[in-house]
């Protein structure tokens, strides 16, 4: 943060685009600024609204050389922009050097990338020495704007000023339910909205992260997830699409349609999935039915769907999330969880959904 930690004393801020570069259509400038602000909005209580006249907390300006603030720009290259820490008047404002060639892609200087950085200053962040951080001072022409996410360093910095986003789920909220759950190399990931808890059996307290800080290309609000341990791949489902990641690497060729797995066209989404390590088979739960997929043959087994209640007595439809651990299947519905012994074919425990999160 800046010396003295200046920050805005309110959560709703206004911004105004005072003028436009001729390098881009106006709506491209507006969308770049809006997207840049939404990066910070996602992880803080801050909200932004645009005004087209009068004063604004954050005024955005394109200028060349001397532009009235005694810190002149320097022509093409070198300094791309600068911005002022929170405060009245020029404070909070972000200036962009219009001697640069501003572009939507990276063929010139990408306005979204630079705006996201400068607006970090407008909110009170100083430069970071972490080369992976958005607030690192040097422009990285190799960054893919589509994959730009705040690093943990950026998130820690901005949340030290404004706190976390109010809609962030609390681990020990008794009504907490999960979107999807999967194992990953011996740890258990509990997905909820834009975040996930990462439970390692070696530590008591789970870590809490933005999905996008590990996998920028994955959506939030997942439906289902499972790890095929034989391939070291986690498959993630949302709507009629699914993605594959290996560690933090998103696999090429995804997302794919869930119908490529053999679901009928009537199935629009998956509720939950469990991978059985021993059988190398995956159970997909949809409403009150389930399918079984043979991972070796990479095809859906005949004779499905079947009724969940029939083969998993005691497990109510609909299943929100599920995973396999220690030879048991764990089914989550709302804020409750059932431990099911697939060999004895019966429920062995009924628990709170967040019992894994050290509550």
């Amino acid at each position, binding site marked *: 943060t800046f010396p003295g930690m200046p920050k805005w004393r309110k959560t709703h801020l206004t911004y105004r685009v005072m003028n436009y570069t001729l390098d881009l259509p106006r709506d491209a400038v507006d969308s770049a600024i809006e997207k840049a602000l939404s990066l910070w909005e996602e992880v803080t209580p801050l909200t932004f609204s645009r005004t087209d006249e009068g004063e604004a907390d954050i005024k955005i300006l394109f200028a060349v050389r001397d532009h009235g603030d005694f810190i002149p720009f320097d022509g093409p*290259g070198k300094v791309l922009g600068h911005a002022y820490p929170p405060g009245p008047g020029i404070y909070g404002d972000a200036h962009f*050097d219009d001697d640069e060639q501003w572009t939507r892609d990276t063929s010139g200087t990408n306005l979204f990338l630079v705006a996201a950085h400068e607006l970090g200053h407008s909110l009170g962040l100083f430069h970071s020495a972490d080369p992976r951080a958005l607030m690192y001072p040097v*422009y990285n022409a190799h960054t893919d704007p589509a994959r730009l996410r705040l690093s943990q360093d950026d998130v820690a910095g901005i949340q030290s000023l404004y706190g976390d986003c109010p809609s962030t789920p609390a681990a020990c909220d008794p009504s907490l339910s999960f979107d999807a759950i999967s194992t990953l190399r011996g740890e258990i990931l509990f997905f909820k909205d834009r975040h996930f808890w990462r439970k390692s059996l070696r530590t008591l307290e789970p870590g809490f992260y933005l999905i996008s800080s590990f996998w920028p290309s994955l959506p939030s609000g997942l439906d289902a997830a499972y790890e095929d341990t034989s391939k070291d791949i986690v498959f993630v489902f949302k709507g009629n699409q699914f993605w594959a990641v290996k560690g933090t690497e998103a696999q090429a060729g995804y997302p794919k349609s869930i119908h490529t797995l053999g679901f009928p066209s009537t199935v629009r989404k998956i509720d939950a999935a469990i991978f059985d390590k021993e059988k190398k088979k995956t159970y997909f739960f949809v409403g009150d039915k389930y399918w079984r997929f043979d991972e070796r043959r990479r095809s859906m087994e005949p004779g499905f769907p079947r009724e969940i209640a029939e083969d998993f007595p005691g497990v109510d439809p609909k299943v929100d999330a599920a995973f396999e651990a220690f030879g048991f299947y764990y089914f989550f519905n709302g804020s409750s969880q059932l431990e099911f012994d697939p060999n004895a074919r019966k429920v062995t425990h009924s628990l709170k959904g967040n019992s894994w999160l050290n509550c």
Partner: protein
Amino acid sequence: YPVDRAAEDEDSMELVQQYLERYYNLAKDTKAFVRRRDGGPVVDKLREMQKFLGLEVTGKLDSDTLDMMHKPRCGVPDVGDFA
């Protein structure tokens, strides 16, 4: 050929001075800069810049450091105030 090299050196010196003044709070005392560019505040500031930007901390104006100074960047300083 050496003359070009000297001119190039002079350009580099000016770039370095401006960079360290602008982003690392080097005192704006040009004479001191020329006389003491191999020691004192210049070496300290170069070290500070190399450490901050993740370069090898040599205190010397090596090619990596010079390359970094030529890269496009934000005009807000890395240390000190910005008002």
